[in-house]
């Protein structure tokens, strides 16, 4: 029983990180209908940036958050204006955006490889090994801090989307971009800003990841997969939905050790995805026809 409880807390902590990781992808997909396959590359780039900031300039990773957010926000806007903006919308655009952003990811991967070699890296601060006791079990301090930051970030995002004008504009564009032009919303600008926010979130997630896991230039593929599973499970429209999706996935993964060997844990998400899609064939966003 003690082990189950410990696993449960583990799962909750993990879910926080997963949610932060998924939100960037979900926001961009929800608003632009573009799957940002470069998301994995951004995660990886941010991990490296955090690591460099720490090893070269001795900036503590958590204090580097503002820097990372700004840098990746800018990167996201640049990506939109330089690349994504040119893609056609609709059927043809879907395939092309996948491939375009995937190509970008490959470039990022290679750049990282050239700059830093393919070896695993990790951010080891003085407190990396510190632990915290929760409900009688011991957990790494980093994991708890990551969880707290992730929750704060999601709350901030929720406030942004619900309470600010930009947030309303973003939600409006997600629903019906054409009508938005009619009421004077600059849709292109919203797209660019959304991409920026999504990239910034990816940057944050990458920073958090760097304190938890070892990483190398290939890092990010599993995370994209997980993010997508979460989006399908929980919906991309709401912070709550993604939080729930993240919880489901985290619990499934953590408790799967009772059933499958540990090396298959990352396959759990995929299996979950297929199961959900088979059970709900129209996905969780089946089209509704109203006369």
């Amino acid at each position, binding site marked *: 029983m003690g082990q189950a409880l410990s696993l449960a807390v583990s799962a909750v902590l993990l879910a926080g990180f997963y949610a932060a990781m998924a939100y960037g992808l979900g926001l961009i*997909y929800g608003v632009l*209908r573009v*799957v940002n396959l470069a998301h994995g590359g951004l995660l990886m780039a941010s991990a490296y940036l955090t690591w460099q900031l720490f090893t070269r300039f001795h900036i503590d990773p958590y204090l580097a958050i503002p820097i990372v957010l700004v840098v990746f926000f800018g990167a996201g806007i640049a990506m939109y204006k330089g*690349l994504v903006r*040119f*893609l*056609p*919308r*609709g*059927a*043809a*655009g*879907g*395939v*092309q955006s*996948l*491939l*375009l952003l*995937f*190509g*970008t*990811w*490959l*470039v*990022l*991967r*290679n*750049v990282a*490889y*050239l700059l830093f070699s393919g070896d695993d890296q990790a951010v080891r601060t003085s407190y990396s090994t510190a632990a915290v006791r929760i409900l009688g079990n011991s957990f790494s301090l980093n994991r708890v801090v990551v969880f707290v930051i992730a929750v704060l970030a999601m709350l901030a995002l929720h406030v942004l989307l619900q309470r600010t004008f930009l947030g309303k504009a973003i939600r409006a564009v997600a629903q019906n971009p054409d009508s938005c032009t009619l009421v004077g919303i600059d849709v292109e600008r919203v797209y660019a800003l959304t991409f920026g926010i999504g990239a910034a979130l990816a940057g944050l997630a990458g920073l958090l990841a760097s304190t938890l896991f070892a990483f190398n230039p290939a890092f990010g*593929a*599993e995370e*994209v*997969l997980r993010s*997508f599973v979460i989006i*399908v499970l929980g919906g991309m429209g709401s912070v709550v939905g993604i939080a729930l999706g993240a919880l489901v996935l985290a619990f499934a993964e953590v408790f799967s050790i009772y059933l499958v*060997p540990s*090396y*298959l844990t*990352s*396959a759990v*998400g*995929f*299996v979950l*995805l*297929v199961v959900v*899609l*088979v059970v709900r*064939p129209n*996905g969780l966003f089946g089209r509704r026809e109203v006369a």
Partner: protein
Amino acid sequence: MRGLRLPAWLSGRTLLLFAAGLAVLYAAPLVLSMGDYTHNVMGLTFMFMAAALAWNWLGGYVGQISFGHSAMFGVGGFVAARLALELSLPFWAAWCIGGLVAGIYALLWGHPTLRLRGPYFAIATIGVGEATRLVATYWDEFTGGSSGLSLPIGQGPTKYALYWYGLYLLAGAVALSYWLRRSRIGLGLLAIKEDVEAAGDVGVNATFYQDLVLFLSGTVMGVCGGFYASYQAFIDPQDMFSFDRSIGFILMAVIGGIGTILGPALGAVVFVMIQEFLLATYPQLYLGLYGLLLVLVILFEPLGISGLLLRLGRRLGRRPTPGVAAGGIATSSSAAEGEQQPVLESPRPGQGGAA
């Protein structure tokens, strides 16, 4: 005996071109003197051309981008290798059975996931590829785990002989590519690619046709895997099932011309050439270069090399007939031209709007 009547979608001229090309490639090593290395690499390239074409049936004709095709490549390779090792089956039989098993595997994961559209399907395939790789790597009894499987030397064809077997494989893939696109099945696939629900509303059984294409694609991929096993005489799961390998197939098709009939084969040739060049001079740049190529192709010429050739053909004043465009690359009719215009033109009004 009744005279041979060609089906409506096959022109005599195309058939002639095909036979001529086949004959030329068949005879080439016997007449010219290529080095052994060139000869062998060509054989391998034929296989990659077939694999790229097979990927394109699903990715280009139906429009479902698979990031996990290495799964079938690996399944075919390992089944074939195992059969050759355990049962001493002749290599071509091992390839065929390996291919069939790969095709069935494709149906297993594909049937439920093909109802997903676009990015949903693509990401699911990333998962398929990775999950397959994980399972295969740890299933040592079958795949030899990280140490892989070696095929004994002397059993099976030589690299030299594989040139012609690769050529047959390619010929088969080209024939299938042409048939799938030009017959009425091709029209149905295009409809599915455009709007799968509307296709159903005019009678297209999308599930059946997607499954069919996936099965064919997976089977041919599997056969290619078997070829590869014979060629290298050694395979290991980390390589066969790798994500990078799946990426390679995508690149071949996209660079050559996704959705065209022969474009991917061209792309495979370019890919192998770049690979050879890069491995020699800048081995650490190949991923970035591929990524850059992808970005450039998508932004400037979504039909890749085929697109460039089409434009060249138009400049030279030759209006592409429905059958053959400049350079002998057979594309589909106006469908290909309208298909993915250079992105910097605005999309046609009423076209491409998400329903």
